[in-house]
């Protein structure tokens, strides 16, 4: 998918979060890495149509991200978004979390939506958990349901905002394995992540976002092997300090 970003600025009050980001490339799987407070989540929310930028624009496959509410709802529906804590609806069962948007937003009939939900639950190792509400599931299960909900309408792109940051290590692997599977099947995604192993080995491209600017961008292997900026060098060095 062709992604063009032109002069993207975002400020909250007088705090500059994104300071002029320009980008143009084909995106299949992209990891956004960088220190906390570097603007990664803000950037992803703008891409997802959840936040209107202060200045600049995003163009996906030639389509400018709209600004009016009705068109925005359609735009968001064409993507799949996964939040750090899943963002599942508390009051609905896992199955209903997946099926309700299929019916209400994508116009599927009841039977097809339920079948699609069950098919995904099954595939993601959640058969038998469909009737449970989010509070009754483990963190890893919740996140897999959230990913199932996001991929259910076959979106053109998945956006994941630190999908494993709130999880215990064993659940992290569970979720990352699932994403790697989805990639093999051709699902495109952009993920904000602190899992450097995942960014390096499972994502084609990596973007390093630091102090509100896109400091480095390139194929994952190159970026990790030879950081060009001292900031990325320091960032990776810090992460490796306690690695086994």
């Amino acid at each position, binding site marked *: 998918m062709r992604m063009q970003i032109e002069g993207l600025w975002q400020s909250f009050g007088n705090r500059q979060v994104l300071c002029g980001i320009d980008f143009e490339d084909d995106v299949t799987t992209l990891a956004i890495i960088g220190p906390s407070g570097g603007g990664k989540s803000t950037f992803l929310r703008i891409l997802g149509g959840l936040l209107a930028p202060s200045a600049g624009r995003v163009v996906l496959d030639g389509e400018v991200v709209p600004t009016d509410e*009705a068109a925005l709802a359609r735009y968001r529906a064409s993507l799949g978004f996964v939040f750090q804590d899943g963002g599942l609806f*508390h*009051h609905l069962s896992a199955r209903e979390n997946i099926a309700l948007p299929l019916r209400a937003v994508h116009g599927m009939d009841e039977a097809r939506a339920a079948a699609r939900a069950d098919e995904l639950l099954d595939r993601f190792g959640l058969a038998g958990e469909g009737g449970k509400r989010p509070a*009754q599931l483990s963190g890893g299960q919740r996140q897999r349901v959230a990913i199932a909900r996001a991929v259910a309408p076959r979106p053109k792109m998945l956006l994941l905002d630190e999908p494993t940051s709130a999880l215990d290590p064993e659940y992290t692997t569970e979720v990352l394995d699932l994403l790697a599977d989805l990639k093999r099947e051709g699902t495109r995604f952009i993920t904000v992540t602190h899992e450097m192993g995942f960014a390096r080995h499972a994502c084609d491209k990596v973007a390093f976002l630091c102090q509100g600017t896109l400091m480095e961008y390139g194929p994952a292997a190159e970026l990790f092997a030879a950081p060009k900026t001292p900031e990325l060098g320091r960032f990776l060095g810090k992460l490796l300090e306690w690695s086994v």
Partner: protein
Amino acid sequence: MANPFTVRPGERPGPMKAAVSYLIVVALIIGFFWVSLLQVGVALDFSFVAQYRVRILDGLLLTLEIALGSLVMSLAIGLPVAVGQGSRILPVRYLCDVYVKLMRGTPLLAQIYLFFYIVGTAWGVENRLAAGIIILSIFSGAYIAEIVRGSLNSLDAGQLEAARAVGFTRRQTLRYVVAPQLVSRTLPALTGQLASMVKDSSLLSVIAVIELTQTMQEISSATFNLFGTYLFLAGAYLVLTLPIMFVSRYFERRLDYAHAN
């Protein structure tokens, strides 16, 4: 052998275990009143119940009618006020805010007198029952507004963002996410409010609405049986409020989707 009078944290007692402990509690309460009555030297006499059963039943029905009528009307007042308290239009926001503070900050008894004799007379509300329901609704509407506002505030921003992310329009977000979560959060408290309204309606006796309390007052002064009538009155209110409280607890457990059960 487990102790028959204790439960572990979070454990629900079995029916037998609960019944035994309940029985002890009820026996203690009745015993306390029994001893008190003996000390005062009063013999209870409930013979008036048979004699006045038609009037008592009428009073009971009227109390229920007032409570239910007021519940509907106070919902119609409380919901818009709860939304109005968050309004961007300042006069609207302050009006809702002042209304809630005035109603919650003054005794219902004073409100009944003031509304009925000043506002009611000035605007021609002469039907005592209608006036009573209106007054109780205005009073209770403030509490309902607070209940609803609390639930609105407790809505998780993440849920709203998730609703936008799946592509819901505003209307769909309201229908599929906000409304169901709001209902499950307010229903237990609203049911509790109904129980309060059953009790609060007793104050309408001061403007001579012949509901349960006024009926019993009349019977009391006709029979000079003060203790019997008031004890019976308290019991009659309990018959109305206990089931409502039970339903409220049921909703609370049933709709508590935030916790695994």
